[in-house]
């Protein structure tokens, strides 16, 4: 299967779980590539939120504290810089701060913006994978480079007991 098809398959698998919810911008309303991998999922499972990345990330952490597994979607990696306090100072520190008592599991999706056929420019196409890996210790960062790995990576993210950030390539939606 192709890159985008594997993403759709993974989202359907996650949507079948009772404890998951999809949250973010353009998860319920069209507007970016990630939407096209979610549009066939029950609307009840999708929460469209305002553009408030810091709150979205923190909300997802709070939901996870109470037993929900949020699939927290940020359309582009660039936008995730707006949620760094919630991600780095909170989600990524919670197991240490609570000595393993609280282990919130959040699955994050983001995408390195495509440059072909339209180039989004320097504010919409950055790849911060290595920077995030160096900052995050309780959150795994996974780069989705090949279609063959996508489904198993999302399965691992759901079945594990850590939070995971899965990074997609916008260009691969058409190319692979």
């Amino acid at each position, binding site marked *: 299967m192709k890159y985008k098809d594997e993403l759709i398959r993974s989202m359907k698998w996650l949507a079948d779980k009772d404890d998951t*919810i999809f949250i973010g911008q353009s998860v319920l309303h069209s507007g970016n590539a990630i939407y096209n991998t979610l549009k066939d999922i029950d609307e009840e499972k999708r929460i469209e939120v*305002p553009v*408030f990345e*810091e*709150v*979205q*990330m*923190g*909300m*997802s*952490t*709070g*939901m*996870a*504290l*109470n*037993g*929900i597994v*949020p699939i927290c979607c940020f359309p582009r990696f660039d936008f995730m810089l707006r949620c760094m*306090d*919630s991600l780095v*100072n*909170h989600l990524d520190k919670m197991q240490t*701060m*609570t*000595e393993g*008592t*609280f282990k919130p599991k959040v699955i994050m999706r983001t995408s390195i913006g495509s440059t072909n056929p339209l180039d989004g420019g320097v504010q919409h196409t950055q790849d911060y994978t290595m920077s995030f890996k160096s900052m995050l210790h309780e959150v795994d960062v996974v780069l989705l480079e090949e279609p063959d790995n996508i489904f198993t990576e999302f399965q691992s993210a759901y079945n594990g007991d850590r939070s995971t950030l899965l990074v997609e390539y916008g260009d691969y939606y058409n190319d692979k």
Partner: protein
Amino acid sequence: MDKKELISFEEDIKKIYEDGKIKAPVHLSGGNEEQLIEIFKNVDKDDWVFSSWRNHYHALLHGVDKEFLKDLIVRGKSMSVYSDKPKFYSSSIVGGIIPIALGTAMSIKMKGGENKVWCFVGDMTFESGIFYECYKYSRNFDLPLQFVVEDNGLSTNTPTEETWGGKQTPPADVYHYEYERTYPHHGTGNWVLF
């Protein structure tokens, strides 16, 4: 727990800290015992309580075991007190706790639960943008989230009103009280040799 017991707990911690036995900052509570005792009459034992770096009184009044709390503080975790039963979590980053409290409140509503989330913030945090985003969202979606603004006029030692050039009046559905803190921002006010 009554006022005397709360004060006594912090005096005990103060002594341990001044003996050089706590190798981390401590943020002692004080001066707001009566207000908090009244507020916690409304907090159910199964509610979630989210707090900040100054959290000892909140933890005690929510029913966190006194000895467990003392052990945490002595081990240097005054700024990150937590408990699973009762449910209690704190953060030492200004404003960072608010969206987490919001999400927990949202999950309670999604699951059809009846309990509430309580979120204690200081007056500087109340003035921040993230408070207003979360407050607005919680009210528009009717989430079981109760905010409490504890107003001592300071953030560390930075005066809230002076630096903002004024202060906002909390909405009517937000608990708000003013008090004068007994202890400094952190420590006890006495020089300690470690």
